[in-house]
């Protein structure tokens, strides 16, 4: 039989005015299992807590009911007090007779009666409280950062500098991400590569950072503090350790006419290549579909030229397992493809703009390459079709963005800024060129952002037209752009030499698959979901998995970097402890009676339910069963509700307890 102490708080007048606390206490004293019941003016005060501790000692109490305010107010306080006197903190209950009673019921009779009921319920529950120990899981102080763009690099360096191991994963042959391909950055117009490349090198050389390029996440097991991530290292056909990056191989490769991914098909590369001169690591890969040796068996020139003998045509994908305590997702973005066939995954294309049909209709990342000193035109603005310098360029905003009819309803946030930047760069490079920008709204919120846009308009003479473009056609080498200026109230037609589409920002290819492996949610567009839009912006609902950068939503560089540092801070906070201790009020399965229908598995928001096998002492198979992973369970109890045989129960809110509370009211 439990030995419960009931402590009724007056909260000064707050409770006592409308509730006869003495009556409540004396009533409680008669309840089964209650050893002592008394009232005091301020239970949360130090003397009040002392009273509780003394009574626990005197009466040898093993459970405590404090009848006072909301548990959200003081449950912690009283748990600590009771624990101090040797009572298991999870055997402390509160009856909320203030917020839910004295403050809202002013008829003393009714209020007192209800208070008595609330205490009765709390006692009934306390009687059945099991002593619980907080769940402790050891933390592997090692983080995996998925994605080696500016966000991933930032997060990796922050954690590494703090002295923890980092595994940095990049799908492409080099880290650097989209930013490495940008020309100059708004609003300062400083050179993108000049900012980024030192950081790339730093990351590669950092003693605490292990780099896996040309690699992807294959599988994820485990939970916060203890993830086992299987990484697929794609065949590079180069022995990275032997290779010196001398360049003999790619200079000798006869297969030269392959579209360069890094230049978004505007430039060409050899079959054995480094994506761009400042690539990190400065080690080539072989494009197995373009390599003559690998496709036809002939050639092999690169191998002959390689003094380090680093070329290995028999290379294969390798799987490596990394044990980490946390994961930071920084997979970034891709641009919406205006050629998208009608209604592929609900998203359709812009046939009316002729992207992919007219060589001189390009997207904004392609323009970045044209404007970049390291680009295919060495920074001269020349149009793809004939290499001529365009005398007029039309920049079209919101291609895909803010276009529910095409399947994307959101604003891509950064296009307004880079459109202004593109117009500026173009005017700086081609003084007699006309830059037209079609926009719906100019969204330039941010430090020195609007000033930047004004500069493009006022000083650099970009011509802004408020309205969408309806159709782009081509005649005698000119692109005929039919748009509108709703401010002038006129439909206008511009004859342009080149058109740049500010295509929407979409999450990187395949991020949904990664999210599923990690148990992270994502929205209808594939952007990863943070656990709270305001208070937990870089955490996810998968404990130990954090997000930063454009994988969570369209972002510019400063925002991505800020978020990356935030994610790093969260990781460091996690790593500041040897063990994670978590609230033990979680679910558990009666594996003997479980029917293994896995309704719980389907309804668990945290993927905390595993399919397991029940075996006897001799390890012989008895039956299949659901099993809760205590590391993942957050204790919502949805599984309890859906279990047909009620083989799951939830500590702290057990079936027995709820029924007992109901019974106490009859």
């Amino acid at each position: 039989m439990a030995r419960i102490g009931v402590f009724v708080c007056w909260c000064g007048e707050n409770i006592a005015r409308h509730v006869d606390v003495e009556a409540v206490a004396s009533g409680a004293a008669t309840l089964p299992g209650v050893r002592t019941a008394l009232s005091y003016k301020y239970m949360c005060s130090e003397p009040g807590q002392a009273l509780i501790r003394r009574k626990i000692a005197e009466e040898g109490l093993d459970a405590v009911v404090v009848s006072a305010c909301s548990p959200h107010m003081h449950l912690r306080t009283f748990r600590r007090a009771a624990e101090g006197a040797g009572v298991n903190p999870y055997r402390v209950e509160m009856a909320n007779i203030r917020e839910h009673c004295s403050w809202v019921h002013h008829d003393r009779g009714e209020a007192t009666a209800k208070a008595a009921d609330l205490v009765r319920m709390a006692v009934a529950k306390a009687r059945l409280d099991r002593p619980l120990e907080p769940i402790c899981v050891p933390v592997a102080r090692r983080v995996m950062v998925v994605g080696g763009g500016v966000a991933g690099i930032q997060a990796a360096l922050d954690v590494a500098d703090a002295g923890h191991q980092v595994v940095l994963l990049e799908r492409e042959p080099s880290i650097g991400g989209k930013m490495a391909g940008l020309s100059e950055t708004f609003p300062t117009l400083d050179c993108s590569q000049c900012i980024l490349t030192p950081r790339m090198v730093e990351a590669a050389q950092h003693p605490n950072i292990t780099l896996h390029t040309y690699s992807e996440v294959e599988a994820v097991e485990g939970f916060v503090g203890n993830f086992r991530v299987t990484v697929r290292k794609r065949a590079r056909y180069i022995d990275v350790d032997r290779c010196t990056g001398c360049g003999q191989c790619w200079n000798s490769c006869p297969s030269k006419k392959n579209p360069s991914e890094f230049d978004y098909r505007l430039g060409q590369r050899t079959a054995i290549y480094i994506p761009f001169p400042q690539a990190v690591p400065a080690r080539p890969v072989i494009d197995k579909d373009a390599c003559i040796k690998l496709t036809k068996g002939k050639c092999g020139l690169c191998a002959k030229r390689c003094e380090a003998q680093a070329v290995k045509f028999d290379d294969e994908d390798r799987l490596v397992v990394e044990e980490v305590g946390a994961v930071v997702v920084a997979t970034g973005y891709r641009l919406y493809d205006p050629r998208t066939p009608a209604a592929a995954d609900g998203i359709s294309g812009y046939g009316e703009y002729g992207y992919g049909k007219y060589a001189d209709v390009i997207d904004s990342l392609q323009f970045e390459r044209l404007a970049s000193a390291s680009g295919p035109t060495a920074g001269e603005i020349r149009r793809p079709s004939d290499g001529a310098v365009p005398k007029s360029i039309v920049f079209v905003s919101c291609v895909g963005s803010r276009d529910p009819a095409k399947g994307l309803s959101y604003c891509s946030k950064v296009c307004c800024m880079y459109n202004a930047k593109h117009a500026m760069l173009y005017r700086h490079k081609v003084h007699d060129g006309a830059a037209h920008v079609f926009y719906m709204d100019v969204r330039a919120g941010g430090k020195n952002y609007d000033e930047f846009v004004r500069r493009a308009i006022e000083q650099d003479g970009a011509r802004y037209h408020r309205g969408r473009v309806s159709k782009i056609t081509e005649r005698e080498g000119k692109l005929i752009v039919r748009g509108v200026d709703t401010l002038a109230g006129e439909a206008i037609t511009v004859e342009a030499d080149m058109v740049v589409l500010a295509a929407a920002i979409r999450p990187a290819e395949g991020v949904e698959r990664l999210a599923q492996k990690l148990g992270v949610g994502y929205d209808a567009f594939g952007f990863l979901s943070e656990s709270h839009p305001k208070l937990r912006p870089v955490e996810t609902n998968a404990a130990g998995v954090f997000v930063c950068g454009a994988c969570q939503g369209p972002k510019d560089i400063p925002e991505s970097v800020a978020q990356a540092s935030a994610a790093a801070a969260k990781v460091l906070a996690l790593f500041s402890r040897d063990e994670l201790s978590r609230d033990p009020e979680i679910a558990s399965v009666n594996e003997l009676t479980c029917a293994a229908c896995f309704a719980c598995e389907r309804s668990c928001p945290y993927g905390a339910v595993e399919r397991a096998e029940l075996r006897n002492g001799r390890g012989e198979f008895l039956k299949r069963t659901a099993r809760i992973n205590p590391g993942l369970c957050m204790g919502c109890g949805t599984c309890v509700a859906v279990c047909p045989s009620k083989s799951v129960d939830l500590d702290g809110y057990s079936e027995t307890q709820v029924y007992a509370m109901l019974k106490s009211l009859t």
Partner: protein
Amino acid sequence: MIEALRELARRLLAEERVRVVIGYGQSSPQGPVHPLFITRAEDAEQLVWNRQCFSNLTAYLTRKDVRALGPAAVVVKGCDERTITVLEKEAQLERERVFVVGMVCEGMGDPGLPKCQVCDRHRPRLADETLGEAVDREVPALERYAALEAFLARPAEQRMAYWQEELARCVKCYACRQVCPLCYCERCIVDKNRPAVIDTSATLKGNFAWHITRAFHLAGRCVACGECARVCPVGIDLTLLNQSLARAAEEAYGFRAGEDPRVEPLVGSWSPQDREDFIR
């Protein structure tokens, strides 16, 4: 058709594609039709097929003893076959270990059972092999739920009175549970104590609790084979309860249990757009 069935059974057993064929048998031409388990090809001619093949044989697929025999073939009607999908979704069987023999069915009993009057699945669709020729008749949902409609036309007090009267007769024999192919729990919730969720006494209170539980546990799962009502010794029309849930599922979520193997089970999945007109 019978011959085709027997031939198929023979082949499956002979080629050892299955270890047991679960079908219908009849001790004497007039005798009652009963489930028949054949493990040897030569016994195949004991199989029968007529308008008395009421029971939903998929119920046996989850039985320990049957599973022990190895891969099974099961004879199903259009109405029964949906059970297979549900069971598969609930990890109670591996579809590839079951050979489903679909029988085109013109209705059971003479005259046909109520469910057969409104059947829109004379020809099984999910079977591995289907015997017999017939076309489907699309039955509008309204027609399928006509009986329920009629019952719901009565005022609430009358409905309550009806059930108090009906359920008072329940003797808690649990035949409804035994026969249900989807009641496969090893320990049924009624047998749970500490705490007892359901009052096990055959009182009105206990009976309400039981039948509410039985019906709701079939929410989004019941395939309307109607066996529970057919076997009830005191003749309580349990299909009314099952139907109310089935219709709600169809109206609110366009969901029919077992209809489409690609669709996730109704309970345990959700959509932000789910209706909530009743929530304030």
